[in-house]
């Protein structure tokens, strides 16, 4: 059983290494170690470009979302409690960011994971797998 597991593992790893080698030979952006200075500069430029493309993800991960609610009293005296992040309202988003609580980093990931998995089993896996797939897809291209 253990031997079979080791065999499968070694097959998977050897395939992964082969794939990485083939990517190197295709001069993909993973190729950073290059004797050609022009090639390495191009690789760095590509990495900067990819960071720019995935910047919304990075920004959300590190800065997060404001989660407080704000209360608005209407003319008839009714108090409405609204979410702070009203989609599309940049000013409100910035104001809430400066003054209130926010959810970011691992907390945000865990919160999303819980909510997605309550919609349907494994939806969290598909969601985060999908995002990883997009990033890998850009890296390979």
């Amino acid at each position, binding site marked *: 059983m253990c031997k079979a597991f080791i065999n499968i593992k070694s097959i998977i790893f050897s395939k992964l290494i082969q794939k990485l080698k083939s990517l190197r030979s295709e001069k993909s952006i993973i190729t950073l170690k290059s004797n050609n200075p022009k090639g390495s500069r191009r690789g760095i430029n590509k990495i900067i470009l990819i960071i720019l493309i995935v910047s919304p993800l990075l920004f959300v991960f590190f800065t997060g979302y404001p989660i407080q609610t704000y209360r608005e009293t209407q003319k008839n005296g009714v108090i409405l409690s609204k979410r702070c992040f009203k989609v599309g309202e*940049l000013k409100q988003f910035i104001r809430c960011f400066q003054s209130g609580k926010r959810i970011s980093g691992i907390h945000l990931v865990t919160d999303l994971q819980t909510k997605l998995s309550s919609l*349907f089993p494994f939806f969290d896996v598909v969601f985060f797998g999908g995002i990883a797939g997009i990033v890998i897809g850009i890296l390979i291209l």
Partner: protein
Amino acid sequence: MNKHIFLIILCCYAVFFVATPPFQLNDEPDHFQYVFWLTKGVFPQVPKTGGMPIFDKNISATYNVLEVASNDNNIPNFSKIKSAREQNMYFNTLFRSTPLTYQAHHPPLYHFIASFPFRIANYLFHSLIPIYYVVRLTSTFFFFLTVFIVWHIAYQLIKNKKIADYLSVVFAINPVTLKMGIAINPDIAAVTLALSILLTFLAVRNKPITKWFLVLITTLLTLGAYIKFQNTVFFLFAFFILLFRGIQEKKVCPYLIRGIVVCFSGFILFLPWMIHSYITSGSITPSSLVYTFFCTQNNPRYTWYAVPIQALLEFRHPISHFAGFLGWGEPYPFKLFFIPYTVIFCLFLIVGIRKTVSLKNKDWIIYLFPHMALIILFFLGVSFTYKINRYSCDIQGRYLLTALFPFILLIFQGASSLIKTKKETMAYIMFLFSIWQFLFILCYVLIPRYYV
């Protein structure tokens, strides 16, 4: 198509599919109900007046747990959804009279196709939420079929596989395409059929037209019309192209007859639906009746010379929607993003049209332009109706989804002529921007709307 490109499309689709909670997209509860009644062997009807209760009490109770789209300040109650799923919540309704749904104004083909996955899922699960997700797979099928067709159209017109790959991604991961690609709604199927008609004509542009081709095109036209009424405009497109082929081959009369035969056959095949609509709702275009129920007459009355200008200006809405409006309800990106997006989109589009005309690119002018123009003209007519009747409704991005790929091709032409660079590089830039746009809309529209 390059497998890595396909992987990116697949991942973007999967992320939107799982991240959009049930019944949040345009008119989904109504469309789902339409499918539900068809599986029961009952054909629903359009209500005679607006504001009527269109859901059975039991169905309403179910939707109250799941539906949040019309209430912009709420996020879904995930624990309620979880318990509904675990308790196998389901419609338990016994109808006494003909069921009503506003979406019954749509021809039934999409809903009929969707009724098959519904039946299978119903047999396997008998629980509303799994059934809902399985029925969504109907749109998944049409989404990927559209991507396949779009790639082939790009390849037919540009003859470069890499550019076709990049531009297909730009179309496929646009938030409006993704939104309609996952929604239980006939819009994506309507796009599939409309673009397949264009591709079929492009594929035989240098080949003789056979009897079997005419049968195929009549079938596609009829199926398209049975999915959404707006696709009837492509009967005119087929007639125009056949006439053009006749002029090109100096056989005007035979081709004119072929055009008439195709249109007449399609009309005869579509006639049962029009008769049904006339009998049940008193109109052969029941969609126009439904507009009168939904669109309130609270717009200002325009003078006669302002109506055409207002009708044209209405098209700012669908174009800005392509920036990432995920409506129903309110999800839209920051103005700082969608206003410049709309301006740049229009600028490149106009330059692209000018460039294509000046280059005298025959295939683009003969095939792509009329296809795009006919759907725009159809909605220009709708827009005129709105402005004349003071309706507050707007032309949405999803209505013009059929024209989005022609728009992207023309924007590509416009951008390549304005920014002096290799065409392949331009397509790559558009591809990278579309990925950034996807992630931006995911992070700043979709997730905040439903999760935080």
